[in-house]
């Protein structure tokens, strides 16, 4: 069992950024952990439901859980459910799922850009990560597309094409801050994700795939359900008489936001997650474990000192 507090040990939090339905609380660290480097991957497929991943970096990496490759060629896009360690120069064949039902064809090996599956699909993909069925995400994708009024069965690219502009905007609106190695993500005022990377560089590589598709999709879905601002949004008191009053009002609303951030940190910190005794993957001192709780589920990487160097937890309720 692990608590989120343990997962975030050694980090602090930064100022919350809020746009629309999404809030991002940066997780900061003073030092990087050098055990894993950001993924620098060449991927391809030689059969449906299996992804061949070659790591081109100089040190080991973790292919993050929920990684997906939406390629521009005539080939079926693929995703993986659980994360996988890859040594430098090594190739691993990973159990995966097709995310483009109506497109046949194999992916030619190349450095295809990576995304992280939309949150609801990421959680489902993790749950079925060990099952060998390349079509198992088609129905969930179809349901997800339906929920977004995208009429295209099990093709994730249909959603990505339809909402390209909106998803690009998430990347524009949220900024990385110095020493950032992760984030606590809220959508609609509720915690939907806790992320921690081993280093600033690793986080910078994951940031866009996470914010754009994984959490961006959740924010988009929420935005279609309601236009009301989330409870994490504090309004400035505009009923002021002087500029001094306005300055005080700004300070007050800032205090409220900071207090909300601290409360959120405390609330999420107390969450307990449980996992099996066995690990999903191991590499030297590092172990990859799947954890779950009623609120969050995902995977973490622990080192031999039982410190968490990587975590990616998404809302279990998102599916």
């Amino acid at each position: 069992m692990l608590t989120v507090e343990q997962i975030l040990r050694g980090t602090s939090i930064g100022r919350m950024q809020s746009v629309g339905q999404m809030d991002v609380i940066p997780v900061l660290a003073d030092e990087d952990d050098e055990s894993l480097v950001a993924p620098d991957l060449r991927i391809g497929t030689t059969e449906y439901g299996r992804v061949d991943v070659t790591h081109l970096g100089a040190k080991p990496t973790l292919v993050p859980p929920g990684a997906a490759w939406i390629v521009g060629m005539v080939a079926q896009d693929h995703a993986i459910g659980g994360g996988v360690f890859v040594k430098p120069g090594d190739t691993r064949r990973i159990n995966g799922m097709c995310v483009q039902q109506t497109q046949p064809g194999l992916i030619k090996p190349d450095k295809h850009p990576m995304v992280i599956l939309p949150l609801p699909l990421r959680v489902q993909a993790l749950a079925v990560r060990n099952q060998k069925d390349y079509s198992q995400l088609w129905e969930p994708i179809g349901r997800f597309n339906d929920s977004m009024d995208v009429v295209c069965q099990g093709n994730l690219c249909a959603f990505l094409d339809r909402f390209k502009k909106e998803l690009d905007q998430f990347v524009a609106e949220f900024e990385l801050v110095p020493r950032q190695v992760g984030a606590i993500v809220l959508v609609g005022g509720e915690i939907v994700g806790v992320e921690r990377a081993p280093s600033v560089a690793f986080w910078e590589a994951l940031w866009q795939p996470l914010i754009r598709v994984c959490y961006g999709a959740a924010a988009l879905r929420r935005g279609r359900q309601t236009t009301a601002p989330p409870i994490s949004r504090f309004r400035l008191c505009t009923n002021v008489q002087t500029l001094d009053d306005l300055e005080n009002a700004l300070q007050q609303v800032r205090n409220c936001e900071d207090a909300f951030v601290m409360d959120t940190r405390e609330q999420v910190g107390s969450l307990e997650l449980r996992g099996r005794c066995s690990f999903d993957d191991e590499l030297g001192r590092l172990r990859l474990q799947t954890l779950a709780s009623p609120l969050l589920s995902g995977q973490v990487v622990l080192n031999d000192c039982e410190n968490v160097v990587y975590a990616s937890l998404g809302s279990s309720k998102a599916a």
Partner: protein
Amino acid sequence: MQTVAAYNPGQEWMPPPSISAQEAGKRVCAFLDVALTSFGRSTHYNTQAAQKIAETVAHDELLALDPGLYALLLGLDGLTDRCRQRGLWHLLASQPMKRSLPSARKREVIEHLVRELPPQRLFKTFDSLRAKSGRINNARTRKVILRAVLTARCLQLWVVKYRRKLASALKHAWGQRTTSYLRNALATPLKQRDEAQKVALNREIGRFIKPEDQSYVFECVGFALGIRDKLTLPLLRTFEAAKADLQCGAGLPYEVLEGLRSVYHPDVSKEETLRITREGLTKHQQKTFQKKARKAGVDVRMNARNYTATELYLYAFDVGLDNDVLQALEEKARKAAQFFPTRYDRLGVVIDASRSHEGDKAQPLRPMAVTLATRDTLLRVGKEVYVGYCGGKLENGLHRPQGETSLAEVLVTILARKPEAVCIVSDGYENAPAGRVTEVVRALRGIGDTTPIFHLNPVFASEAGGVRSLDESIPVMPLRGPETLGMSFLRFLVEKDPIQGINMLIQLALRSERRRVSC
């Protein structure tokens, strides 16, 4: 309706009856946003594809409003080369222009654009005309290409530096058969050319040029088409000589000699190319090669006064600030301030130095460079100027972008100094939290504070179809650099009073034209 096509300076320009003044203003503003801030590359926020789509819409909509106005505004000073390039393409390729603009007027504008565009952009435009389905190849386009190439002041340099693109442009204009025929004619010694060859050379080349330039142009065109013997022009002979001995290549452009080195002398180091060509480097190369030159121990001189303030800040981000650059920045700021439309006793300036001002890999740190250059100018348009920074980190005298965007707090701090006006320089993306500036402005106006607030935006946002606004009550103006601040403020006027603003823009464009003609 008074259109620009038949413009009478005594009368006011009005939009066509089917388009309202507001709509006309909106289209002109979108065009100005593109013309001043879009470079057709990806930004921190948008992909290149998204930028291109938004640009196309802005050009098309202004063109549909009034082709004459479109053509006239292309002559404004301070537009990006990319905007001029698109404009040239439209003038040559688009149907509406053919219908609504007198030929003489169209020719004037085309000639201006051809003169202003750097050769790479010119050839790219010709390439895109060739590549467009249906191959735009009317008589006007052919004449434009031939005139542009054959009368180029630097034709000898062009055939050495851009020989493939130049050859491709000529083939587009002449067609493959005529090009082959002309090549054979040019390869034939003068005394042995038959009458048909002479007529063809005169028809396809001679009629565009002065008689005294004929042998020069013939040799250049021949070189571009692959003729390498009996060369008399110095640069062409140097090109050939450098194939055998790289040291003979002094006088050639760096990239040309580097190309010859990689093919004919691969065992010679790249640093040797730099050493040989250092006296002939372009302004841009003098700046961008500084690091490379220092590493190679090659002395490459650059004169900081040859660059815009934005270019100097980009250079400083890469290499560092030195006294020469600082002095040049000071001079440029003073000069740009002279053209600022007004002066203040007390001016407030809010600088967005958040992470998004890092720009994108395609244009790293450009938004920050424009912001700092503009700040320097604004520092000189008020007796007292109060500057506040949102985010950023001061490192070796330079503000480097970092952190989130919380402009509202800085704005209120600046307002406490009671300025007469406030300029916010920001890309318009606010996230700590979004909308806080709107709340602050609403509160301000509620307490009766009417301090004018302007927003200068150095980044084109494709999802906004222009520059992104912080709040609908704050006029936002596209910002290319301090040199075009006047134009940015005119955009504000167009938004506030479209007819007056557009007419002022027309006057500005006509003044630019008259100045060019008198030169």
